[in-house]
């Protein structure tokens, strides 16, 4: 007991490692190989351009692990300087509660409204006419990644759309390959479902369900076909026991699996492994059926801070994030698309060019992302359903569809 006070004093002295002025802490969950390389470009650009330090607050384990930390820190009154969040409906409440910094002045000074394409990205950051986040990149989920060698080994041509892929699956299986690689986490099951439903049920049905929350369409024949297609894909994915998305991507990279349905962030993993798009692997946006992409993506938010110095650093960061050089470097490393329509991405590879083309094609090929139209709560319910559906082969497509329609009917 007598020991205690001196111990306390000692540790207090050790604990006094206060951050030196001019450092901004940035929280994110970009920890895979390609993602980390992309963060590095941000940190380096920020430090070089502003002279401030970048304190990296990476938390591995996806948004589910990071979000309680981010929200606790903001609620507890000791916020980080900036944080990654998916833009759209997730941050609405924090903005409404006045906990996020208004960066409209930065946006105006840099003409964000003119350069950001598609404009929906900036709208995702806008509440009551004020801008609260800096969109960083565009991520689309609707991609099928294919290993050329896996199909070669199986003696079939590399598919160019989903139905060819389905047709090639038996040959892959015979050659000892996993036809479809799928990580076990619920969001991946949901991503695969969303992508397949967009390709099979079609664009109109997808919009009716995801944007208008039309439960009748969700229970209708278009979606019935989509659920059947998922039930079929479930058999192609059986035996794929990996957890993380990039472990599944790695199965495609090492030619152990024929393909994976995953967002364009998988691109970063192929790049890290030294694979060449069009030679070692190819990619089919919209599963090769509808050339449409959603425009989800990451945004950086800036929690309100009492310290004007921090506020200044936050605004500097916002400016850096949208600068053309950073946009190019970051997105090339991460495999995502830039949020600026006015920059030169000619160094991008074949897959990214496909994405850029669709973006440049204008509104027809662009969907709002699920994150913007569905609440996290609804998404979570669909994820649970899909996790169960993909894992449990005894669950019929009709049952799953009926439960899906219920969730959509309750969505707000």
């Amino acid at each position: 007991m007598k020991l205690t006070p001196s111990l306390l004093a000692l540790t207090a002295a050790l604990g006094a490692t206060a951050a030196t002025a001019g450092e901004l802490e940035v929280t994110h969950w970009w920890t895979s190989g390609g993602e980390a390389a992309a963060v590095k470009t941000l940190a380096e650009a920020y430090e070089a351009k502003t002279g401030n330090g970048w304190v990296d607050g990476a938390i591995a384990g996806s948004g589910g692990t990071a979000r309680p930390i981010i929200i606790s820190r903001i609620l507890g009154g000791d916020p980080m300087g900036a944080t990654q969040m998916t833009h759209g409906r997730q941050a609405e409440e924090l903005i409404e509660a006045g906990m996020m910094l208004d960066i409209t002045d930065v946006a105006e000074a840099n003409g964000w409204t003119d350069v950001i394409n598609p404009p929906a990205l900036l709208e995702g950051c806008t509440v009551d006419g004020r801008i609260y986040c800096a969109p960083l990149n565009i991520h689309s989920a609707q991609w099928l990644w294919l290993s050329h060698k896996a199909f070669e080994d199986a003696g079939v041509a590399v598919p160019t759309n989903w139905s060819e892929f389905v047709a090639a699956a038996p040959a892959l299986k015979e050659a000892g390959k996993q036809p479809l690689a799928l990580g076990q986490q619920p969001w991946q099951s949901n991503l695969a479902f969303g992508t397949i439903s967009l390709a099979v049920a079609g664009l109109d049905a997808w919009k009716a369900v995801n944007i208008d929350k039309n439960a009748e369409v969700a229970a209708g024949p278009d979606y019935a076909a989509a659920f059947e297609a998922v039930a079929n894909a479930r058999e192609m994915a059986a035996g794929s026991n990996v957890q993380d998305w990039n472990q599944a991507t790695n199965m495609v990279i090492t030619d152990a699996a024929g393909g994976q349905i995953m967002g364009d962030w998988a691109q970063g993993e192929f790049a890290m492994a030294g694979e060449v798009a069009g030679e070692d692997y190819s990619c089919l946006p919209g599963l090769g059926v509808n050339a449409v992409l959603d425009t989800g993506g990451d945004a950086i938010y800036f929690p309100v801070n009492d310290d004007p110095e921090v506020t200044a650093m936050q605004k500097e960061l916002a400016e850096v994030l949208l600068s053309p050089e950073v946009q190019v470097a970051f997105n090339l490393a991460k495999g995502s698309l830039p949020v600026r329509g006015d920059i030169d991405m000619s160094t991008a590879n074949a897959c990214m060019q496909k994405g850029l083309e669709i973006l440049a094609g204008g509104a027809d090929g662009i969907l709002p992302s699920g994150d913007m139209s569905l609440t996290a709560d609804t998404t979570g319910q669909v994820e649970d359903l899909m996790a169960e559906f993909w894992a449990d082969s005894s669950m019929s497509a009709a049952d799953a569809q009926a439960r899906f329609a219920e969730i959509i009917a309750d969505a707000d």
Partner: protein
Amino acid sequence: MADTALPTHGPRGPKPKRALSRTNIIVYGTLIVVSLYYLLPLWVMVMTSLKGMPEIRLGNIFAPPVEITFEPWARAWSGACTGINCDGLSRGFGNSVQILLPSLALSVAIASVNGYALANWKFKGSEVFFTILILGAFIPYQVMLYPMVIILRELGLYGNLWGLVLVHTVFGMPILTLLFRNYFAGMPEELFKAARVDGAGFWGIYFRIMLPMSLPIFVVAMILQVTGIWNDFLFGVIFTKPEIYPMTVQLNNIVNSVQGVKEYNVNMAATLLTGLVPLVIYFVSGKLFVRGIAAGAVKG
């Protein structure tokens, strides 16, 4: 109940007869087989951490390494990457120590005084508070997260080391208080009464009589707290910030960030390094732990 001297040592079971009797074969046989189950994960972790990735991909996880390499250990300690920081666990070790010491001191000190008051200085309502405290041991921590954040914010302790120390003290309190209360309640009452007659007060008796006699239970409490605080991830990550993230946060980051292939050997080495402090404590003080438990936990 009134038996106070340090717990009786030595086995009390019936004495086996011959060295190779049927009973002995069953007893040792069972113990050895069960030991395999307990040792298997440690064996696998150590072996895997000493192999290179190619060998892991080809080989059997139970086989010892053909070629021993310490590179995974070096990488886990100072090379593994999370985000853009590639300094492995080394950063977290000092932080964990910094979190552990004050949390340990404060939580054990407070719980021992609580236990002493509950055992020897009952006041009106003391048992009610104690019951609430024990019920508190059953509440999932996650439920308390937001309200705790708000409490700490109001106290102005959120986000610094002392907030975390307080959290560890609060959540360690139920079980520790139970241990100390049971231990002090088991001491002979005459001792306490004699001191009272001599005019010793609350603190006098605590420091001069109770404290010197309660080494075994302090050992138990400290071991439990070292394990709990050292292994904590949730509080460490919620109530602090990157400069002071404990080692477990770095472990989570190393294990959950897959950069290309999952480096199982580095993961295992990191896991073992993180577990080293509590493991060493158990190996070194296992005997004291058992004694302390015998003295404290088992007396109703």
